[in-house]
């Protein structure tokens, strides 16, 4: 197992370097000169000369890449000239929103998608199966932003003044406040990395309110997350349902299932005790891989629901031509994506010995 993990880690190294090279090139491929791209159109020539020397932009490209690598390894992702603070600081502030959204969407997609797939496969070609698959097809075909807007309209306008009403935007109702973990745990004198980390997890509102037992805020935060997670989670949900169904049906065609049936086992026992365990293996991969879709969906969903997350920030940074932030956020998103793929692969190898032994 350890050998497999090492091998898998080594194979992701070139990909990591490639990602770094792309984010590195991003800042250099941008139209116009890098100084005015970083400092704004009104930067004077003297300021620019100083900037170019300071950033090493007059040095050869390989040297510049090495400098960039060093910066990234030290955790320095540059400063946003629009907001006048470091990109890492902005990440600490915005990433938790997206993580909460992605996780909740993933939970929603899995909890609904897997059972839907099982039901569909169990009663194959029945009305339930056909209905589920039609719904799944419509699900993968609906643009995230359209679905988000329609959900918003349905739950905020049509269900207005009913218990089904849900808030259409933001993370918390205005007026509701959640103290940071540093405040609740009396850890205000922390500094550096640990302070940043504590600040980061404080902003995971669901986690924070759960840990500190702040049930009112927890309820409020969850209610705000329902619609966005449904919007982002629907496409993965549909894919998971289809995958689960076809995977179970594939497994049901195998010899060992026929043996189990021939022994006189009931269909239900065969499906749940014999087929499911093997059939869910590819589903694990799909669940992991759908994270990329979730992150892409997050840009659109955060725009629709006005959530201050990574996607929304990235988009705002692009329109504001705040390239340091674009570079930093693109890098972090790609890193998260690679990391999740790695975890999924390792998990898959753990579940299926054939992978790690081949």
């Amino acid at each position, binding site marked *: 197992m350890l050998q497999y993990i090492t091998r898998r880690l080594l194979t992701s190294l*070139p*990909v990591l370097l*490639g*990602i770094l*090279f*792309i984010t590195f090139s*991003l800042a250099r*491929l*941008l*139209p116009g000169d890098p100084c005015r791209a970083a400092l704004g159109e009104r930067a004077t020539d003297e300021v620019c000369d100083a900037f170019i020397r300071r950033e090493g932009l007059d040095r050869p490209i390989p040297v510049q890449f090495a400098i960039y690598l060093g910066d990234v390894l030290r955790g320095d992702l540059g400063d946003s000239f629009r907001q006048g603070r470091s990109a890492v600081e902005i990440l600490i502030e915005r990433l938790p929103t997206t993580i909460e959204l992605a996780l909740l969407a993933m939970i929603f997609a899995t909890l609904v998608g897997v059972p839907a797939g099982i039901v569909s*496969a169990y009663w*194959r*070609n029945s009305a339930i199966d056909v209905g589920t698959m039609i719904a799944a*097809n*419509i699900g*993968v*075909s*609906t*643009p*995230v*932003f*359209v*679905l988000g*807007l*329609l959900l*918003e*309209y349905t739950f*905020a*306008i049509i269900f207005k003044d009913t218990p089904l009403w849900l808030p259409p935007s933001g993370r918390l109702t205005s007026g509701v406040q959640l103290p940071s973990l540093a405040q609740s745990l009396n850890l205000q004198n922390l500094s550096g990395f640990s302070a940043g980390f504590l600040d980061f997890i404080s902003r995971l509102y669901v986690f924070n309110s759960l840990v500190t037992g702040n049930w009112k805020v927890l309820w409020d935060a969850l209610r705000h997350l329902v619609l966005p997670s449904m919007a982002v989670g629907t496409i993965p949900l549909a894919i998971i349902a289809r995958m689960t*169904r*076809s995977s179970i*049906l*594939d497994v*049901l*065609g195998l010899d060992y299932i026929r043996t189990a049936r021939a022994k006189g086992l009931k269909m239900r026992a065969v499906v749940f005790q014999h087929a499911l365990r093997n059939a869910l293996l590819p589903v694990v991969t799909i669940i992991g891989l759908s994270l*990329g*879709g979730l*992150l*892409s*969906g997050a*840009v*659109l969903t955060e*725009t*629709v629901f006005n959530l201050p997350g990574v996607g929304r920030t*990235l*988009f705002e940074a*692009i*329109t504001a031509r705040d390239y340091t932030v*674009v570079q930093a956020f*693109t890098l972090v*998103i*790609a890193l998260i*994506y*690679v990391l999740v*793929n790695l975890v999924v692969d390792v998990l898959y190898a753990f579940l299926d010995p054939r992978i790690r032994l081949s």
Partner: protein
Amino acid sequence: MELADTTLRPTTQALALSRWQRTSRILLRNRSAMVGLFILAILTFVAIFARQLATHDPEKPLIGLEENVKKRADPCIHALGCPQDQPEHYFGTDGNVRDVFSRILFGARLSLIIGFTTVSFAILIGTLIGLVSGYLGGWVDNVLMRVMDVLLAFPSLMLAIAIVTVLGPGLINALLAIGIVSIPTYARVARASVLVNKEMDFVSASRALGASDPFILLRHILPNSLTPLIVQGTLGIATAILEAAALSFLGLGAQHPTPEWGLMVGQEYKNVFNAPHLTFFPGLALMLTVLSFNLLGDGLRDALDPRLARTRTG
């Protein structure tokens, strides 16, 4: 040689014909593929005859041209009881007082063009990379595939956004970005199929006859790799349309006053509470278009991939 030609041609034609017949027969029996094809046929009809079917100019505001016309007016169809003194707009009007119905019709034209051009571009480049990579193997294969891995390491929409940032917003650049982002998929599909086909006896035979590498690639391997590419391409059109709409929604793709569905939603989404029809109709059009390609792609996969059809139990 001439004799061989005359005896061979009818055989290959018959084979090609029977394969086409088999495919179309399976497709005709596949209900979801037929639904997809039906929606697509309507869309193509609408796209071709958009100018004849449209009731208004899709890009011109109607202020001053029509009496009583209002901004973001609800849909009004006289036959369904809408008062006669109000101007008839099947899908209402938008924030710039343009006829939404006409814009949706012209949007069909644009969406189909977007889907086909991006996927053609991606298939062309991707197949070339896949063919070279799979056929040559060795370090060429290694380098090309690692580059593809890096492209796949980014969530596709994010990468497309990054590329548009570099190129600047606009429909053409957005299409280019989506094309680039989807290259790795086709490169991988083409490569996998080359790896299988290059070990086939007919390839060895051709090589023994002295055929050159480019000849073998284009004449023997490429035609045999087309099936998975066509299937992937059909499904890819669906993804491309969704991504182009997403970029336009964010303001990075098609620009005002182009009647693009994603842009139509993007310009009006803040008014969803008082004018939901401005989100609903373009959204529905997008959903139906994407759905048709997804259904057709799934059907084609069942019809064209005998291996899949045999092992398929569902």
